[in-house]
């Protein structure tokens, strides 16, 4: 059976590309709006969740309000979750970490150095070319999280929770120029499948 991986549309440029890559890799997928509730998601039936990028600034009130529902989802959901760019920042902030203006924002090509080839970054080390587009960055991870990758200008390019299958990446694995992007999504789908079969 195909795993169902839904994509929360956070209004970023590449959210629709996440849908494309998941479908190409054999998952059932659909874009769901930012306002979607966990009950609605359960009703659709899903095995995993990806939250995309967006133009918001998570330490500003207006943005935080717009993302309030997604923040609630992060807390209520227990299925595999991959958070990209602004969602990665929201994840960190919502769970007690901190996001701030990046000292050196990254736009376009960067090199991601893999610190920990765990299940999500398996097959991507020791480093790979990725594309990023962000003004802010995570400066402190929440408790219970560990860093998986960094770049020259951004300390936390990827992180995971030690307690549940929750991951955050600052770069964009869904864009074509990120060389190991497909590998990351393949890994995520594998995590989703294992989780669904109760392993």
């Amino acid at each position, binding site marked *: 059976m195909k795993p169902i991986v839904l994509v929360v549309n956070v*209004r970023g*440029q590449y959210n629709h*590309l996440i849908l494309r890559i998941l479908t190409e890799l054999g998952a059932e997928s659909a874009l769901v709006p930012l306002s979607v509730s966990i009950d609605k998601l359960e009703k659709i039936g899903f095995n995993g969740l990806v939250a995309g990028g967006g*133009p918001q600034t998570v330490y500003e009130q207006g943005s935080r309000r717009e993302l309030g529902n997604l923040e609630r989802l992060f807390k209520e959901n227990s299925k595999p979750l991959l958070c990209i760019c602004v969602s990665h920042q929201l994840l960190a902030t919502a769970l007690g970490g901190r996001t701030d203006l990046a000292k050196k924002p990254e736009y376009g*090509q960067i090199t991601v150095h893999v610190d920990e080839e765990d299940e999500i970054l398996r097959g991507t080390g020791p480093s790979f070319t990725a594309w990023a587009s962000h003004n802010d960055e995570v400066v402190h991870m929440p408790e219970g999280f560990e860093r998986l990758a960094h770049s020259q200008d951004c300390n936390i390019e990827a992180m995971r929770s030690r307690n549940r299958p929750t991951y955050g990446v600052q770069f964009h694995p869904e864009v*074509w120029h990120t060389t190991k992007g497909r590998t990351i999504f393949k890994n995520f789908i594998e995590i989703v499948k294992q989780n669904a079969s109760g392993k």
Partner: protein
Amino acid sequence: MTVQQSEFDAAAFVKSQIEEIAQRLGGERAIIAISGGVDSTTCAALAHKAVGKDLLCIFIDTGFMRLDEPRKVKALLSMHPLALPVRIVRAQERFMEAIGQNEDAEEKRKAFRETFYETLSETARKESCHFLIQGTIAPDWIETKGGIKTQHNVLEQIGISPEEKYGFTVIEPIANLYKDQVRVVARYLEIPREISERQPFPGPGLLVRCVGRVEPSKFKTLKQSTPIVEKHLATTGGQQFFAAVLDNTIEDHPAKEPLQEQVSESLKIPSREVKVNILQNKATGVKGDMRVYGRIASVSIPNEQREVYGWLIEKLRELQSELISVNPEFTRILYTIKEGKERAPYDVAIRAIETRDFMTADIVTIPWSTLMAIAKEILKMCPNVAHVHYDLTSKPPATIEFE
């Protein structure tokens, strides 16, 4: 890098779209504006298969087309195997008037969109077409909806009701596809290679490559430079390559000196030998999913210095990224290939990018000798060009087109 093909099922897609178009029209007539590009031609071919002569194909001559384009496109589409009857609607004066003296990129794009739909709507009413078939693809509505730039073919997604405003219902058969997927469909439909593999050309055409205000002599320079760039880069230019024309008007800007220092430091060239100019024209960019209508800087170093290091392209690419990261106002860094008459009114920028889906784009490493040959030819043919530059900026932080 080659473009990867997805496991996209063109046969199933074509079958379902033909059925859907026929069903939605239900015997009514439809109009389509074709440009000769792969998106609109693919939609026209789908619709033609679905409803035959109930489809009216028009080519709106906006005046912002390349040399002889309307005639060439009409001829190509009328031929076997497409056999699409195309009517040319002339509207050059109308578009020129709507654009007027506007120099802001978004104002120009909005004026274009408005005129485009008014023209289309008039023809549709005259011909009793209640449906508009449109070749909108994913990046079009994503960028318009995200406030990055106004694409000429996006209405419903941003809350404009085409039924109320223009009197037709819009059908967009390929709205969820990206360019590489549209090409797969086009090949499946046996659309001629000149079209299925043609590099994208923006809806508003040369308008968005004539940066800032449109003036007759400036536009002429762009029209002359375009075939020169297309000819030299036909095999090496990546997925899209073109010329843009800018005003050779330089701003006195506080960032000039710090930029000069930064360039000197990162290229290890004495700062007195580095020249940085900040242009008055602005260009559209995208940073962290937000539109930035930003500054353009041009960098030049003496040719002897450059020769010591070779082309320097990798260094320059890093430099671009560094400069834009530290200077938030900027969205474009150009590298000056060759100078002409210093006081000539215009500059030409060459852009060549590598991409799959046009959502992200990298610059192409064009051999220096090719760039020099292009620059020489442009300076020879266009005496009112002061500098010819190469655009070093990826997407993000730039967009593909300048406006």
